[in-house]
């Protein structure tokens, strides 16, 4: 089975965009995530990342990353609540714990953990969307003239990861198929076997790269970037989000305090930044061509709804 985060080619704007444009767009969301602590802005960034993923067709990547991120966020909340004793609103006094000492669970430490967890969750979703929607080959090729050896290593790794995953699945099946009289196979033995097999595989992949001429020094002058008509859109949205985030930060849009008591700012700058960041999730929206719809409507012999005829889609 394919990894939910594996790149899948689709005829969508985010996939069609050049790696630079896609990285600029998704990177701007990440900057917001790491720049802001306001739950509202973080939530808006999360909405944007989810929207971007869904509009790009990476539904499974979004779903799985949300599930993983929620688990991670919950873990962070629990650990933060147990480790941090700051805050004035005590929810539970859990007494003396080994290593941790006196453990008091406060509302503030729970909320602070939730904010950190939310940040991790949104970052995970953004990475998942990047992984599922941005062609790693194009990223590596863009990097190759800048860092040839790193690009080669990254190419080998990017190919070996799915190969190793397939090998691991096969080894697991073979272990399950051993007869009851054969020696049992532990995880360590399987891991050793997988590692040995991966080394063989990497030699094969390296041989293929060699045969394709990877060791040749390609003339740079003949390399040319492939552009997309969506590039400008993603660069503009990314720049707008970045600018708004920086201006908003300066203007006090990141008003949030967890200790000693919780204070969440909901002033106009915060609301404006949150609204803009959330709306940026619509950037991968595909604009449908009106020319294609007409013959279909004629063929079916039906009149289209006025709203559609007005180009509302």
């Amino acid at each position, binding site marked *: *089975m*394919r990894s939910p985060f*594996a*790149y*899948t*080619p689709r*005829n969508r704007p985010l996939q069609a965009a050049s790696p630079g444009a896609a990285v600029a767009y998704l990177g701007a969301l990440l900057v917001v995530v790491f720049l802001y602590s306001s739950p509202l802005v973080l939530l808006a960034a999360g909405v944007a990342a989810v929207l971007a993923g869904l509009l790009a067709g990476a*539904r*499974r990547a979004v779903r799985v990353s949300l599930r993983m991120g929620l688990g991670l966020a919950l873990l962070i909340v629990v650990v933060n609540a147990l480790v941090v004793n700051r805050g004035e609103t005590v929810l539970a006094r859990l007494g003396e714990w080994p290593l941790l000492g006196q453990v008091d669970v406060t509302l503030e430490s729970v909320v602070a953990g939730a904010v950190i967890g939310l940040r991790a969750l949104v970052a995970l979703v953004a990475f998942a969307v990047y992984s599922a929607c941005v*062609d*790693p*080959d*194009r990223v590596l*090729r863009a990097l190759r003239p800048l860092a040839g050896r790193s690009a080669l290593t990254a*190419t080998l790794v*990017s*190919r070996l990861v*799915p*190969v190793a995953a*397939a090998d691991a699945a*096969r*080894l697991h*099946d*073979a*272990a*399950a*198929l*051993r*007869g*009851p*009289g*054969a*020696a049992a*196979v532990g995880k360590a*033995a*399987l891991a*050793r*076997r997988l590692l040995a*097999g991966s080394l063989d*595989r990497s030699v*094969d*992949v*390296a*041989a*293929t*790269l*060699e*045969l*394709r*001429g*990877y*060791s*040749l020094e*390609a*003339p740079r002058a*003949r*390399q*040319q970037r*492939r552009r997309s008509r969506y590039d400008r859109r993603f660069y503009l949205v990314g720049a707008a989000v970045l600018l708004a985030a920086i201006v908003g930060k300066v203007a006090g849009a990141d008003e949030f305090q967890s200790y000693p008591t919780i204070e969440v700012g909901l002033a106009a700058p915060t609301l404006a930044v949150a609204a803009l960041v959330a709306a940026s999730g619509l950037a991968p929206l595909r604009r449908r061509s009106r020319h294609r719809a007409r013959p279909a409507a004629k063929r079916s012999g039906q009149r289209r709804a006025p709203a559609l005829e007005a180009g509302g889609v």
Partner: protein
Amino acid sequence: MSELAIRRGAAPALAVERLTYGYPQAAVPALNDVSLTLAPGEFALLAGRSASGKSTLLKAACGLVPHFHGGEVEGAVAVAGLAALLVGPGELAAAVGYVAQDPETQVVSTTVAAELELPLELRGDGPADRARAVEEVALALAIPHLLGRAVDTLSGGELQRVALAAALVTRPRLVLLDEPTSQLDPVAGDELIWLLRRLNEEWGVAVLLAEHRLERCLAAADRVVAMAAGRIGFDGSPAEFLGWAQAADPALETPAARLFSLAGLEPLPVGVRAARRALDAAGLGAASGVEDVGGAVPITPVPHPGKAAAAEIHPPAENIFSARGLWVELERDEEMVDVLRGIDLAVARGERVALMGRNGAGKSTLLRAAAGLLDPAAGKVETAAGIALLTQSPGDYLVRERVADELPGPTGAAALAAVGLEHAADADPRDLSGGERQRLALAIALAGRFDGERLPGLVALDEPTRGMDRGRKDDLVGLICRLVGGGAGVLVATHDVEFAAAFASRVVLLGDGVVIADGPAAEVLSGGWYFATEVARVLDLPGVVTPEQGAAALLDRGRPFPPHTEERTTTRGEAGR
């Protein structure tokens, strides 16, 4: 040499002169004093048993030997005038394309289009040149619909085509292929060979093709080079090769040639068409009155999925495996797809069943469902006395460094004895031959499933003959017969129709997740175009699938011929051992 000179064909496509090569730390050289010249536009077939040096010669021709693998080398190799022992594989890439056996490690990009574009980009071609070359090679190999696909969503056959396209996209003068059809079904395998022939004729690409299934490609070749123990044993035309193989190494004979030699006919035919013409000329052709010698063995009616009871196929008391209304769905491209659709099938004790069908028909899925690796979406699978499944990669079963550590105690010893490996208990599995490693993996799957001397359950093998020469296949037929003699039933998923004819008493043909034919092997394997043996295609006689049967039919015109019985197959298997 300039690229222009390479394209104009100023030099031989391949010139190997007195090449001797040994892998690092190898006791004996893999190639020994090999000399070979391949003219531009020539199509040569590289024949020989396993470990005879075929793959090493191909690797020397593309520069992987010695540049990538190391080792000691003497002699000279020139590819389109480039000294392959001096320049690396990267420099040779413009002149030579190489396609190895395993397509999975031959792709390094995420999408098909990127994979095809990579060699062009690496040699510095501009975007317009790259786009045109990719489009043309995709059209030539009939894969334009795959260009936008991610490589990890392709089937084995599709992946093999993409690997071939990536090798051809730079328009090399020479293309080297190492058993490219070993993972393909008969349809895809034949298509690939004739595609190579077309590229050879239309583009003038010289082809050097290493294959075990010679019957598949002999007719397409201009020339055959046979290797034995690292040396060239024969170099000549396909027709001459058959005469040489008959005298020097009968394991390399094609079934049609074996049919003719058993029937005392000359000359030995290169392919089905030549055989038919020769028979017609001798008055023995299909139109000449050779009777239907197979007898009236009826093909078992195949019930419609989900409608007929499995009891109609075999009496339940005999069955050691049964699937009733079996549906299995798997995820493909984020969608659930029905891979098996209402399979009703039973295997009785003592049966030898070949499970056939094109790539993606559901053969492996059926075996995996039988072994409990997949849960049915609907229906039921029963293996009353257990199942031992050997998957396509026997190496996956070997995780320890001593055979006896894999199979400890008396149960382990019994399993080793069952596969004839009791002598290898102290060996390192990596030191065993390919055939022995496969038998060891089977012993691991069988261990603990014996009831005294008897083996009561089902033994299932998934594509066990990949990369095997005929000697090793005969050994496997013998092993299957021994297991059946011990009380087991055997179910083998295979693309190899000649192997199926050698071991199977019954053939089940799957198509798109449904059983489309189920009957005696001699009937099923003589009743089609692709899933038919070479002898069946030559003689077109119902029930005649092996060279021995065909020769008897030709010799005894008019006398009824016994159908493909248990005794005949067993005898052949024993002889193979």
